[in-house]
């Protein structure tokens, strides 16, 4: 279910009305260069409304509108389905058109590697990475395990039930890494449709462990009585502030998966954008990244802020593609 002409119109009218009320008659105007959009930009989301990516995309859209960062509005559009494949196909077909960008996460690798699709990750134009979302190892508050060592000892003794978002996507990738590195018995992996459902399943004791992001488990962690316990983070350093301050790293507790694993929160464009067009989007996202709203959002959701563009971003993408390729081969999901 998605945008149609009418609600877009309603949105625009409402935005205009609210802008007029809030900021007086000054209409937003940007420099009209050849490499800036001449009509609204579709910001494509590969998940259902309300999913992780959806929150990011709509937040970014809100920041752009609130601070009048773009001469043309950004409109978030959901193209869910096929673990991202539907959205990728949609944007792939908009070759050279800067009026389309999409927010991507690790399904950008896992789906493109795992599915036979008529394009690969190098076909898309990289724009920028805005944040890295760390993974924690979570158990139910009533579980006896206090450290990663306790957990792996239990996982070696019995086949534990674990749960995560999607099948053969980032959560299962990480569990597969944990199993390979710790010598645990193969996990019984139960796929869910989203991070919220994953956290609820653990809180309701339908599973023994999850690798939720910090924000996904936060409400259960802060509930009283507390329902979920984060054991450790798969990042290389402990959080230095916020609700999870000083949470130990999994590495320091003897659970070393070999790499620092994150969910990327990146923006990609369709194939064949010119350097000037890319520059427009990069500059725009840098302004979003520098806004106080984005800083506050990142702090509340315990995100690692990391702006990457250009060659740095390309290297990051190449590294992550290789990482997923290796893990998925090892797990026997692909030949």
């Amino acid at each position, binding site marked *: 279910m998605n*945008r149609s002409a009418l609600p877009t119109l309603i949105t625009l009218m409402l935005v205009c009305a609210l802008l007029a009320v809030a900021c007086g008659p000054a209409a937003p105007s940007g420099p009209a260069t050849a490499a800036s959009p001449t009509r609204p930009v579709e910001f494509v989301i590969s998940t259902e*409304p309300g999913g992780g990516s959806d*929150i990011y995309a709509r937040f970014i859209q809100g920041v752009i509108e609130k601070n009048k960062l773009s001469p043309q509005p950004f409109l978030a559009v959901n193209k869910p389905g096929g673990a991202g494949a*539907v959205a990728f196909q949609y944007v792939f077909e908009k070759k050279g058109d800067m009026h389309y960008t999409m927010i991507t996460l690790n399904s950008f690798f896992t789906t493109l590697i795992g599915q036979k699709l008529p394009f690969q990750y190098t076909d898309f134009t990289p724009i920028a990475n805005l944040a890295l979302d760390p993974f924690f190892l979570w158990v139910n508050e009533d579980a006896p395990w206090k450290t990663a060592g306790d957990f792996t000892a239990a996982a070696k003794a019995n086949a534990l039930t674990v749960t995560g978002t999607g099948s053969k996507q980032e959560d299962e990738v990480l569990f597969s890494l944990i199993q390979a590195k710790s010598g645990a018995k193969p996990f*019984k*992996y139960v796929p869910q449709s989203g991070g919220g459902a994953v956290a*609820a399943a653990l809180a309701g004791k339908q599973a023994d462990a999850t690798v939720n992001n910090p924000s996904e488990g936060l409400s259960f962690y802060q509930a*009283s009585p507390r329902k979920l316990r984060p054991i450790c983070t798969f990042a290389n350093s402990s959080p230095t502030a916020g609700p999870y301050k000083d949470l130990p790293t999994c590495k320091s507790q003897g659970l070393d998966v070999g790499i620092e694993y994150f969910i990327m929160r990146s923006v990609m464009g369709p194939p064949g954008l010119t350097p000037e067009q890319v520059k427009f989007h990069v500059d725009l996202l840098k302004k979003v990244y520098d806004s106080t709203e984005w800083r506050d959002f990142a702090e509340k959701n315990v995100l690692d802020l990391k702006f990457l563009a250009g060659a740095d971003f390309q290297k990051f993408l190449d590294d992550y593609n290789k990482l997923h390729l290796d893990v998925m081969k090892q797990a026997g999901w692909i030949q």
Partner: protein
Amino acid sequence: MDTFAHLALGFQVALQPFNLLMLFFGVALGLVIGVLPGLGGTSGVAILLPVTVFVPPTSAVIFLCGIYWGALFGGVVTTILFNIPGEPWSVALLFDGFPLAKQKGRPGLALSSSFVASFVGALVATVLFTFFAVLLADWALAFGPPELFAVFLLAFATLTGLESGSPLKSIAMIGLGLLLASIGFDTVTGAPRLTFGRSELLGGIGFVPVTIGLFGIGELLASAEEQGTLSFQGLAARVGLTDVLDSIKALRDRIWLVLGTTLVGFWIGVLPGTGATPASFLAYGLARSWSKDKEDFGKGEISGIMAPQSSADAAGVGSILPMIALGVPGSPTAAVIMAGLFIWGLQPGPQLFITNPDFVWGLIASIYLGQLLTFTICILGVPLLASIMRVPYAIMTPFIVVISILGSYSLSNSMTDVWITLIFGLVGFWLRKQRYPMAPLVVAIVLGDSMEKVLRQSLIMSDASLTIFFTRPIALVTMIAAIGLFALPVMQGLRRRRLPSRQAA
């Protein structure tokens, strides 16, 4: 008593002029969104979400929830008048809503019955929300995949045997529905199924374009073949207050049924990841199983309108509850509203009741006001809406075709859904002629996907042992009820078959 003090605070917040204005805007927009088929409450809320960064969080959430309430009520209009579901949760209303409007010529009664039921469902659900929010949300966590599977099975049990006729044809339709539901990306293994290499099919076939085709277009083709003899002529002789009064009378006769389906709907809504659509189907099935006159269902029985509609609205309110109390949305629309909470910098969860009481209680108070407002607008609109049915058939038909096609296009801005609608329009026409029952097909498409997912999740948890459904207490009780309901019609059928033969002898 504490709750009353909080609620008083909430009403102070919700009654502020600006918040009232936002509520009114939200409800009005929601009604428009609900009336337009295809464009759902979920997408309506999602589209308007970024706009809310301009207003305080409490006003924003009141606005977004207002859209949801409006859409919950408004979805019935095209369903009842044109046989085109305005929203996913109004699909269950096709079975009796349109027959009452068309065959019995009482569109006003059908509309006001659904509005009255909506209002009762929403009101009871809001009271439950007010007093038991955190407690109920906690209970819902005990519902894992095995329990959800048992609930879906119960829904299936109550809904099979819908529309009397050949049981073999019913089974064929269920099979076709399950087959269609399995198209697309398999969430458990991650493999594409039945997509024939086409990326359009990776996302699966949505049940809304299918039902728009089967019912909306299929009905038009059937009417056209009958040269409009069964069409909208001579309808709506009585329009006005009588319909509203009749619906209130009908509600009084069915108050226990409506309260029962409201409770069921509310509970389904509270469970994570279900929402108003399965709630409305289960309620329809339950109303039919509880009824003495099963034959009346599908022919414009008012219980078949009131049960799903009260349940859907109660589920809508209920789905907001785990979102606020736990941070786990109970429906797709609630998931979008939760995205809003994150954007406004609020962390949903029990501590929200302590850290932001004006937000939580302002929202709860606004649910009361929003439902009252929506109900008032809808009831006042009944005569006007019902008079649409007086428009000559020749003018109505192209209009309905346009609405159907626009509706399915706007689902995801894609021609794929339009083709699906048109193809299933033809399929629906043919099935009607061959006297295949439509309802089992729709039920299987709507519930098949979710049911398959929870079944397979359960089997992963239990190492493929079916005992998991009989060793957990809640699942066990629900399974027994479901199996009993499956067995009942079979046994009745056997007895009925034996009786006539004895009489003959």
